[in-house]
């Protein structure tokens, strides 16, 4: 310890002052270095446990009045740590307290952590009170106590970290606590998408549920099964079904004694949402719906009687299909037009849309997406539905949408996206890899004339089947977004979100 502590003391002080005055921002490398330091310090703590108090005294004086991160720097100085990483570290407050319990890296097993924390805080207060250096803590201003600075590290959602075993373990533990079975991935995953889940439709989650399962409400189980089998599909249909199921849940809910409805109901909803997530990853519109419901529930005043509260919630819930509706309405206004429905495997959702349009009497043409460049010269406008609109203007929709937008742009055909405002979300994404959904790869198998192609794809070790569900279209390809608030360009999504937040 002595080697690290003393000689570097004064030199590092200058570094530290400079860095403190420069600013509080940390880059990724600095954060990584911090984590390494933490680990290193833990090890050192174990090793240097025997060192006497004299050592700590020596170290204490030069760096005594400096806030905890300082010793971290002094210790690491030999390993050429650049100055800015040291002082203004907005590290989660536990880190320095935890790893450098005393101003010196050496441990003082005699003092407990709480006492040391209090010591340090008192020191910081005296520093701030002293303001300008009259004390030996020359020129070092302790600007803000560490606890106020927020950790800047953002956590990735777990569903895009499937190849990280630590994350998967954490998820398994969480599901165990909530008594929900963990769905296992199926089949060989294409390496570029190995960070996403891939489930098989033939192994629904409900088979793993124990029969008297009191944790999950039966309507939610039914809903989960409908999602995983694809019976309820499409952004609007899923959200509506979700809200109906929640209505049933609220109707059957009774507040347990000594509990408040607003808090308990929200806690009850958590396992349901995990279960639904396991059946099929939540969509952006479902996420918004859930946020809204949770907000409504937590806003219920505690004095409200149970019956009242329940009716209140039910009424507030009560207030792609979209493109079809637009076309049908236009047809009713006797506009003369022809519709070309573009469809793609494996879902072939266009057939249902085609059926509905033809029933209304609209003249339609049906093509597969491979014939796109063939028909585009005779198209005047392209209408697309959206699954979600992201905050940077990108449109997240069924896979194939960005392809259509791209080809339409080269033919100079205007592309219009129809999307309700409840599908706007604060997320930002620039490509379709980071966060997506992998559907059952067995869907790509096709049986014609009794022969099934790709039947034994699992036997071929180097073959992977990829069944993507969503893709992301950049805003340069989209000319106009039609919403319930009016026509807006793609880049104005953050404005709408801002306006909506003000309303709420």
């Amino acid at each position, binding site marked *: 310890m002595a080697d690290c502590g003393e000689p570097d003391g004064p030199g590092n002080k200058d570094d530290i002052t400079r860095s403190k005055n420069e600013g509080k921002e940390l880059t990724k490398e600095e954060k990584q270095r911090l984590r390494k330091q933490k680990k290193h310090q833990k090890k050192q703590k174990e090793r240097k446990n025997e060192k006497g108090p004299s050592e700590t005294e020596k170290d204490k004086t030069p760096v005594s009045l400096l806030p905890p991160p300082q010793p971290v720097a002094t210790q690491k100085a030999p390993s050429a740590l650049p100055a800015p990483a040291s002082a203004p570290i907005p590290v989660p407050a536990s880190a320095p307290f935890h790893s450098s319990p005393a101003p010196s890296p050496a441990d003082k097993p005699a003092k407990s952590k709480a006492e040391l924390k209090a010591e340090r805080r008192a020191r910081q207060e005296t520093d701030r009170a002293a303001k300008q250096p009259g004390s030996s803590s020359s020129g070092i201003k302790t600007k803000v106590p560490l606890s106020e600075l927020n950790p800047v590290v953002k956590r990735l959602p777990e569903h895009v970290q499937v190849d990280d075993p630590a994350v998967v373990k954490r998820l398994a533990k969480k599901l165990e606590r909530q008594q929900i079975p963990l769905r296992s991935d199926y089949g060989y995953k294409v390496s570029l998408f190995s960070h996403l889940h891939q489930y098989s439709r033939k192994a629904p989650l409900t088979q793993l549920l124990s029969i008297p399962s009191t944790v999950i409400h039966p309507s939610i189980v039914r809903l989960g099964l409908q999602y995983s089998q694809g019976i309820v599909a499409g952004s609007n249909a899923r959200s509506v079904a979700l809200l109906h199921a929640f209505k049933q849940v609220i109707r059957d809910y009774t507040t347990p004694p000594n509990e408040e409805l607003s808090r308990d109901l929200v806690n009850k909803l958590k396992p349901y949402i995990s279960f639904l997530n396991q059946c099929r990853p939540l969509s952006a519109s479902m996420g918004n719906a859930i946020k809204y419901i949770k907000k409504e529930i937590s806003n219920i005043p505690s004095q409200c009687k149970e019956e009242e509260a329940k009716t209140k919630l039910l009424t507030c819930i009560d207030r792609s299909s979209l493109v079809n509706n637009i076309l049908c309405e236009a047809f009713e206004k006797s506009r003369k037009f022809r519709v070309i429905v573009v469809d793609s495997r494996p879902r072939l959702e266009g057939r249902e849309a085609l059926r509905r349009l033809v029933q209304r009497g609209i003249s339609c043409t049906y093509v597969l997406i491979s014939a796109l460049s063939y028909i585009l010269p005779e198209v005047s*406008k392209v209408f697309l539905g959206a699954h979600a609109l992201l905050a940077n203007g990108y449109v997240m929709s069924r896979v194939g949408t960005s392809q259509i937008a791209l080809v339409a742009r080269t033919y100079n055909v205007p592309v*219009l996206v129809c999307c309700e405002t409840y599908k706007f979300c604060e997320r930002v994404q620039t490509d379709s890899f980071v966060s997506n959904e992998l559907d059952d790869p067995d869907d790509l198998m096709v049986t014609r004339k009794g022969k099934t192609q790709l039947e034994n794809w699992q036997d071929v070790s180097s073959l992977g089947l990829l069944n993507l569900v969503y893709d992301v279209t950049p805003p340069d390809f989209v*000319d*106009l977004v039609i919403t319930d608030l009016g*026509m*807006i*360009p793609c*880049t104005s999504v953050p404005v709408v979100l801002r306006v909506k937040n003000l309303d709420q």
Partner: protein
Amino acid sequence: MEECLVEYFRTQMRTDPDMASAVAAIRTLLEFLRRDKGETILGLRESLKWATDCLTEVDSSVAVSSGGELFLRFISLTSLEHQDLSRCKKVMEERGELFLEKISLSRTKVAKLCHTFIKDGAKILTHSSSRVVLRVLEKAAAEKKRFTVYVTESQPDTAGKQMADALRRLNVPVTVVLDAAVGYVLEKVDLVIVGAEGVVESGGIINKIGTYQMAVCSKAHNKPFYVVAESFKFVRLYPLNQQDVPDRFKYKADTLRTVSDLSDEHPMIDYTPPSLITLLFTDLGVLTPSAVSDELIKLYL
């Protein structure tokens, strides 16, 4: 009633030829408000709308209709909770005058923002005759910057020649070029500045015919394409292509009244999409085309 209105409007345009037609229209509307003898606020609003329609029949530019609509919104944006109608009217009149004051200063604000983008020794290309562009160039000349200007002749009314005369009076070296010579001249030019008759929700502009061509050519040559426009020209249209611009803006007012079959007539304006525009200079600040929609939402909602 109508002739009185139109006469007043025409007088305003005659007394100050430098004034934008939209400003004259708003002055007329304000005077109309003062003289109006209506009994209800709703009736007042209806008659103001009617007056705006009359004025658009006289001068069919986009700016007149957008200016009128903004005027109406601005004056009714306050709380009109007073019991007495005359007090309400007074409040509306005061706000109307405030609005008028603000927009009379808008050209100066635009000129102040834009002239810094004109560097010493710059060669500027502009289209037809725009008073805002003229004001910008006046300010740049007053700041002792040396620049040369190329103006397109801009058929069918050869408005470019008027612009050239005005610039010559400022001692700015100016050359008049044919509309067809835009591609030829663009390699010598450093930047392109045009005015606008209307700015649409997507961030695109509606301007004298020939502007779209100039924008496409400057994109091909990678020259910045700047638009200068006052904020009362922001209009709630969203055209996706040239066809989507309504007929009432495309042709002059007299043509619309007299001619039955418009397919023989040549349109006077065209639409430039936002992808070809670099920046817009307005009295609300320097905006990118995507920011126009944000400003419009703030103005109209």
